[in-house]
């Protein structure tokens, strides 16, 4: 399931207006309110990572509003900030709505001043004014002092939006440049001069002498001195600190922070997969079975006859294939719902803080946890959020790591196949798979950090948003949105993929219907070439190989293909058919089933992830990432298969013993190598020095 990646609106418009502001001030909320769009919002800085435009009707004029990623100043540190700044720089004659959070007005105004230095036409919209804000502001006084229109708004409701719309319609006229800025530079092009003082690479001339580093502080001091002046004159601040909460005493406790996070995650997965989600899913399965499936089947039988290829297409590709995934609708929607609650609550920043300990070590940042968590939902959209990273190599690593994470498209496979072979113990199998995905991601990052992709300047600078209660109304809206998107995905991508796979598996190379002509199907042809690769992993049937190939397009297709190949629609009987040697996809033992699950978890990103990955990290690293994934998947599946087979053959403890012995040897070898490295070699030659 995906959120919309971009929604460019190419239709005609009279005028463009940009939404600019600090991260997490409510730009996207205002954007959604004004344009009626439904873009993703959250309580995290950097939810929006690319520009999004949409036209709306403003008293008869068509205005194109552009929502930009949040920025702190007009010099970028991370990738999504660069997107915003590039856009602002490329549209100098465009009106800007600068959104400020009233609770954090001091720092928010620093960006406003930056925009004024640039000579932009700024409307200052002060947001979050209705809920007992930390600062009380004399808006009229501020308006007179800054000589720009100041509007008091509440983007969640509609307060102040009418006035904002009226201001948007005024013609472009640059706002006055503040006096302090003119004094600072004594030049006509104030903005460029200030950017030179700030050492902004885009403004430094090649041969011109570089000002001392302290000029960066000089500019900041000038800005903040002016803000202090404004504060004294126009604000009354309470002593409260924005984002500070008593909850943090527990949730950020040095020793409790991480265990609590793991508990929260475990709770989410338990609710999604084993209690609430499972009941809903079983209910839906029952409904689908008695109504929808039977009805279409009977209809086809009566209209086309029992053996016509049309009947087979409907029964196999549509009923069997699609309904095998459709029953997971409640669980997928729930998982996304929980992730969005987590995101809205403000808790993720705390998690990021606690994870900096681990992620800093492997060259990522605590912020990577956001990307990885979103990866549990959908890796395609999660990869985009890797733009939150400040360092190029960290960004690549975070993006590549995300593809290892077990996304929501993969878990129906675990439930069906794992459920058949492991019964009640499937809880542990699913847990193992989720942890394996995470471990593989972390290991790969650690290896890349040590070898070719060392992070040079990954920093961790993160602002803490306040905790926020997540309302029932918003939760329902998010759930409904996810149900809708899931249905669209099933109805379009999965359905068409099923039809393709069905055609390949039911027609031979000379396009005759296999059931009538008895020739080999196209899929059988391809599958049989590739199947031998998977024999060492324990699943050498061509059906399994074909399902994996088809699964490259979307991971759910692995399951829908299996359902189609085995001619069954409900998960219970698909599971049973997997143990039956006469069915097309067949696993001889639990070991081979588990190995198949491990392989499906890791083997490659889906098509849409691969496309985004290529765009975000470039051709070379996308290719390397996919190859590494395939190799890791193969090795892991091989390992799991053989260990499991060992357990089946020799018993649990014997296998544990063998593995422990093997691990000790490997560990000892590594130790010996590191000892030699430390002492500048072994002394026999001078090669190591």
């Amino acid at each position, binding site marked *: 399931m995906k959120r919309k990646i971009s929604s460019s609106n190419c239709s005609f418009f009279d005028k463009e207006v940009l939404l600019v502001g600090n991260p997490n001030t409510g730009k996207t909320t205002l954007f959604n309110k004004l344009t009626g769009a439904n873009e993703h919002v959250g309580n995290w800085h950097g939810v929006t990572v690319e520009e999004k435009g949409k036209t709306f009707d403003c008293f008869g004029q068509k205005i194109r509003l552009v929502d930009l990623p949040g920025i*702190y*100043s007009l*010099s970028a*540190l991370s990738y999504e900030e660069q997107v915003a700044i590039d856009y602002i720089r490329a549209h100098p004659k465009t009106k800007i709505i600068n959104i400020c959070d009233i*609770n*954090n007005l*001091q*720092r928010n105004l*620093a*960006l406003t001043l930056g925009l004024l230095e640039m000579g932009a036409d700024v409307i200052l919209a002060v947001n979050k004014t209705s809920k007992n804000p*930390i600062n009380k502001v004399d808006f009229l006084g501020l308006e007179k002092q800054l000589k720009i229109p100041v509007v008091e708004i509440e983007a969640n409701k509609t307060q102040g939006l009418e006035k904002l719309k009226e201001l948007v319609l005024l013609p472009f006229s640059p706002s006055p440049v503040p006096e302090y800025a003119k004094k600072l530079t004594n030049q006509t092009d104030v903005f460029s001069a200030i950017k030179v003082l*700030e*050492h*902004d690479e885009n403004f430094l001339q090649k041969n011109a002498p570089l000002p001392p*580093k302290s000029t*960066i*502080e000089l*500019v*900041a*001091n000038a800005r*903040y001195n002016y803000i202090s002046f404004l504060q004294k004159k126009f604000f009354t*601040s309470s002593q*409260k*600190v*924005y*984002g*500070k909460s008593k909850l*943090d005493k527990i949730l*950020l406790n*040095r*020793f409790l*922070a*991480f265990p609590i996070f793991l508990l929260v995650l475990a709770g989410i997965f338990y609710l999604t997969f084993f209690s609430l989600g499972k009941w809903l899913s079983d209910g839906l399965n029952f409904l689908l079975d008695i109504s929808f499936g039977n009805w279409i089947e009977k209809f086809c039988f009566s209209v086309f006859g029992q053996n016509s290829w049309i009947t087979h297409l409907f029964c196999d590709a549509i009923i069997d294939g699609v309904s095998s995934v459709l029953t997971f609708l409640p669980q997928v929607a729930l998982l996304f719902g929980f992730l969005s609650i987590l995101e809205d609550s403000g808790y993720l*920043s705390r998690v990021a*803080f*606690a994870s*900096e*300990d681990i992620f*800093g*070590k492997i060259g990522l*940042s*605590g912020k990577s946890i956001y990307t990885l968590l979103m990866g549990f939902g959908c890796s395609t959209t999660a990869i985009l959020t890797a733009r939150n990273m*400040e360092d190029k190599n960290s960004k690549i690593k975070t993006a590549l790591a995300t593809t290892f994470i077990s996304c929501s498209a993969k878990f129906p496979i675990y439930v069906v196949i794992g459920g058949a072979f492991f019964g009640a113990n499937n809880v542990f199998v699913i847990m193992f798979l989720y942890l394996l995905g995470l471990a593989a991601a972390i290991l790969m990052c650690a290896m890349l950090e040590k070898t070719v992709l060392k992070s040079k*300047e990954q*920093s*961790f*600078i*993160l*602002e*803490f948003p306040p905790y926020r209660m997540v309302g029932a109304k918003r939760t329902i809206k998010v759930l409904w949105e996810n149900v809708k998107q899931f249905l669209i995905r099933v109805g379009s991508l999965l359905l068409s993929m099923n039809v393709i796979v069905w055609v390949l598996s039911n027609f031979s190379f000379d396009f005759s219907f296999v059931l009538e002509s008895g020739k080999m199907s196209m899929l059988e042809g391809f599958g049989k070439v590739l199947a031998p690769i998977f024999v060492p992993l324990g699943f050498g049937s061509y059906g399994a190989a074909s399902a994996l190939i088809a699964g490259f397009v979307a991971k759910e297709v692995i399951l829908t293909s299996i359902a189609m190949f085995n001619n069954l629609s409900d998960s219970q009987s698909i599971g049973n058919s997997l143990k039956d040697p006469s069915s097309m996809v067949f696993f001889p033992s639990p070991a081979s089933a588990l190995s198949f699950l491990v392989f499906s978890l890791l083997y490659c990103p889906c098509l849409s992830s691969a496309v985004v990955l290529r765009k975000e990290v470039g051709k070379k690293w996308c290719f390397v990432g996919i190859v590494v994934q395939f190799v890791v998947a193969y090795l892991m599946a091989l390992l799991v298969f053989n260990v499991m087979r060992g357990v089946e053959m020799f018993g649990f403890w014997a296998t544990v013993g063998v593995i422990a012995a093997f691990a000790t040897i490997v560990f000892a070898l590594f130790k010996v190598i590191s000892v030699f490295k430390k002492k500048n070699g072994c002394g026999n030659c001078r090669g190591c020095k």
Partner: protein
Amino acid sequence: MQNLSEAKIGKTYSIVGFDDFLSVKVLRRLCDLGLTKGQKVTVTHRSLLKKAILFEIRGYMLSLKTLLAKGVLVE
């Protein structure tokens, strides 16, 4: 004079300057975020392995990698 990473939890310090090892980009960002000379900061939390530090500044909460906090001089 000490750096922010050594600050005691709960105590208020004021910023006196920045160490030279901070890169231009990071220094600029810290300045943008309101870490200016004379500004008061109060450290409130550290992570388990002390790799990250959380503090109050200008009425909001900001967390930093400890390595970067080492570049912020306080007293």
